[in-house]
């Protein structure tokens, strides 16, 4: 079955565009000017690009160094990992000197969106502490098993096909929790609930400045244009081509780009990448054309689709983990479930555009993670396949895809 936009979005598009649901066609705006998205993400003013997302590229690259360090048994310590997460300008926390010189870091943007966390800093603190705990447990619970076989309650290696997985006594790969959790807490949260939010896009005199093309100081872009580009950067910021990133989709990072690529490669969802990319282009063109209503429609498409990526991958890993568990293939199962854990965690940062809330709130996410980890004293080792099926159904029920569609990549 081919991928269909959900009814809500289709209806919204129809309403706004009257007779045409094809994003790339001209759509009359309030002022009677046709807004047409360019073929690539290429926007210029006075012959120079107006697109900029350095900060996102920097953070993705910091994340990539953490990914490597989480399995660097010989060199990583709790301190070195936490220092990468909480990097301070000028400290030599990374191999890449440009990153060391940066005044940006990962932790300050973790669970830090305007819409979800501006008056919710207590939860921000809890979430950041979770990510620090994952790093610490990778060192304290996983690393001691470097040269031994894992068993229930014992850290060590498990075989996953020809790959080796290193798990904690509870069966978790804490590096996977960190990586997949970041997709929600950093990338999706910043994109969906911060930079695509009217609270940020329309902040202060952004609309007036954008209407009059008043540029940010010393820049070639308006502030509103830049905020939109920063959302774009969390998905495509590490692509070799900023204007045509779909050419290398899936290969450009270990985070959202990678998993949009994975979902796109499932024929059940083919087209989702183009849909998201088109929405970014048209929304950006709408800002240039000063059509904020059209911009909002595109933001909603991105919010729904990126939320779906997270949910689809959560269900995918729960199902893959269940099938491997049924074969008592623990290495494969626990690897999938560790990734699934991170994607379930990330559900808290998704955005349902009808409610403006996440599809699953913190309490609901915590309940699902408890189901995953608390069937017995040894975490994943005590799971039964039925628990995983139930969790997959619970997640899919809130979205417009089925467990079966997400369960495999064909």
């Amino acid at each position, binding site marked *: *079955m*081919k991928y*269909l936009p959900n*009814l809500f979005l*289709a209806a919204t598009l*129809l309403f706004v565009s009257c007779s045409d*649901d094809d994003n790339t066609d001209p759509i009359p705006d309030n002022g009677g000017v046709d807004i047409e998205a360019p073929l690539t993400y290429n926007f210029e003013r006075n012959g120079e690009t107006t697109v900029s997302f350095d900060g996102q590229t920097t953070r993705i690259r910091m994340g990539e160094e953490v990914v490597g360090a989480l399995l660097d048994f010989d060199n990583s310590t709790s301190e070195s990992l936490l220092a990468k997460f909480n990097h301070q300008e000028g400290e030599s926390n990374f191999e890449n000197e440009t990153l060391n010189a940066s005044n940006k870091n990962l932790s300050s943007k973790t669970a830090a969106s305007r819409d979800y966390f501006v008056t919710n800093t207590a939860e921000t603190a809890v979430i950041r502490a979770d990510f620090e705990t994952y790093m610490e447990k990778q060192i304290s619970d996983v690393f001691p098993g470097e*040269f*031994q*076989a894992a068993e229930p309650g014992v850290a060590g*290696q*498990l*075989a*996953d*096909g*020809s*790959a*080796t*997985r290193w798990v904690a006594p509870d069966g978790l790969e804490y590096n996977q929790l960190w990586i997949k959790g970041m997709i929600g807490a950093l990338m999706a949260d910043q994109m969906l609930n911060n930079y695509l939010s009217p609270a940020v896009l329309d902040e202060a005199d952004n609309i007036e400045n954008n209407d009059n093309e008043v540029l940010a100081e010393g820049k070639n872009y308006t502030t509103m244009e830049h905020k939109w580009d920063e959302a774009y950067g969390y998905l495509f910021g590490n692509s070799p081509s900023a204007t045509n990133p779909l050419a290398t989709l899936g290969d450009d990072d*270990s985070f959202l780009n990678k998993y949009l690529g994975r979902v796109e490669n499932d024929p059940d969802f083919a087209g989702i990448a183009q849909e998201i990319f088109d929405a970014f282009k048209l929304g950006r063109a709408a800002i240039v054309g000063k059509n904020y209503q059209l911009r909002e429609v595109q933001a909603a498409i991105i919010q729904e689709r990126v939320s779906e990526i997270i949910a689809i991958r959560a269900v995918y890993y729960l199902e*893959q983990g269940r099938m491997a568990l049924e074969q008592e293939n623990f*290495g494969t199962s626990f*690897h999938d479930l560790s*990734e699934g854990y991170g994607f379930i965690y990330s559900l808290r940062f998704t955005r349902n555009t009808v409610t403006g809330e996440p599809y699953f709130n913190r309490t609901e996410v915590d309940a699902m993670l408890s189901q995953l980890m608390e069937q017995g004293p040894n975490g994943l080792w005590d799971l039964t396949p039925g628990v995983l099926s139930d969790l997959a159904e619970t997640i899919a029920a809130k979205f417009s895809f089925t467990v079966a569609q997400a369960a*495999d*990549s*064909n």
Partner: protein
Amino acid sequence: MLKKIFFILFTGLLLACSSDDPAPDPDNGNGGNGNNGGEGTTGFDRAALLANWADNIIVPAYQDFYPTTEALEVSVTAFRENPTAVNLEQVRTDWLNAYRAFQWVSMFETGPAEDLRFRARLNTYPADTATIDEFIATGTYDLELPSTIDAQGFPALDYLLFGIADTEEEIIDFYENDPTAVNTLVYMQALAVNIKTLTSLVRDLWQSSFAASFKANTDASATGSIDKLTNDFIFYYEKALRAGKIGIPAGVFSTDPLPQNVEAFYNQEVSKELALEALLAVQNFFNGTGANGGNGRGFKSYLDFLNTIKNGEDLSTLINEQFDLARLAINDLDDNFATQVQTDNIAMLEAYDELQRNVILIKVDMLQALSIDVDFVDTDGD
């Protein structure tokens, strides 16, 4: 608008279904031999197929393989006790004999072999020479750990027998005179014992119990023996043969060709020979025969029974012709694939393409005809 899309989709599904279904069952499904389980019953004697696979092909393949691992261990022991050029030559001969025989069992990664991670432990390449050197130096290692698969098996022996020094003279000199040779020979012996022990375990388990349960599990479901071994066969063909032996060295999955990733890299003479051996083993298994023996019950006879036609020709004929084309393409390559990818990688890619064409015929057309679902997905690579 949505209705229209649904209509188009629905029409598409109908068209897709009607053109590629197996021909009508000549035997009306419920054929009376009682060996058919569940859906997809066709009257084909599934029990007889499994019996041929287990009794005439798989168990004999392990029985043929085991003595070669025994001979390898004997010659390694002799070499360890008396490291001469003559004894080294004997080890090398026995290594190649065993490596060749291994190509006839590698595809059967089910049951005991799967539980023991047999293929990964005997033939993961390229070997991790830094780890091997470390294991030799420290004498501390556990070959059962998943992380040590690239420090054991035939590729690790390949390194010790052909790659421990740059020239033939230096290798002999190393084993005759180098102070670290003693430890190296201890490790070499551990590797040979490991190969022999794993092989005897798999063979014995097949003989003592697994063959019986394998043959009894005639279900036409994802857990039935035919479905599982068919998936293992395709996984092997796609990942180990097509990709491992040809595609990865040719750079199909990377930016540049990877000559150091050929099978038996240090030997420098037999990567083609091993690939051809594996291809023959695969084609024979498709046709229901082993190295010697087998009554022809296999994928070919199953497809012929179902009268599976593609583009007006028997699918089994198309698949066999495609195996032959792949063999011709591989035959044209240098004996050493590392040389091949460095001198004329196009020819290597052409061989890959011929192998890939049969992935489509087998994984798509054959599985559809046999009503078998693929049970593996591409791994994440992370």
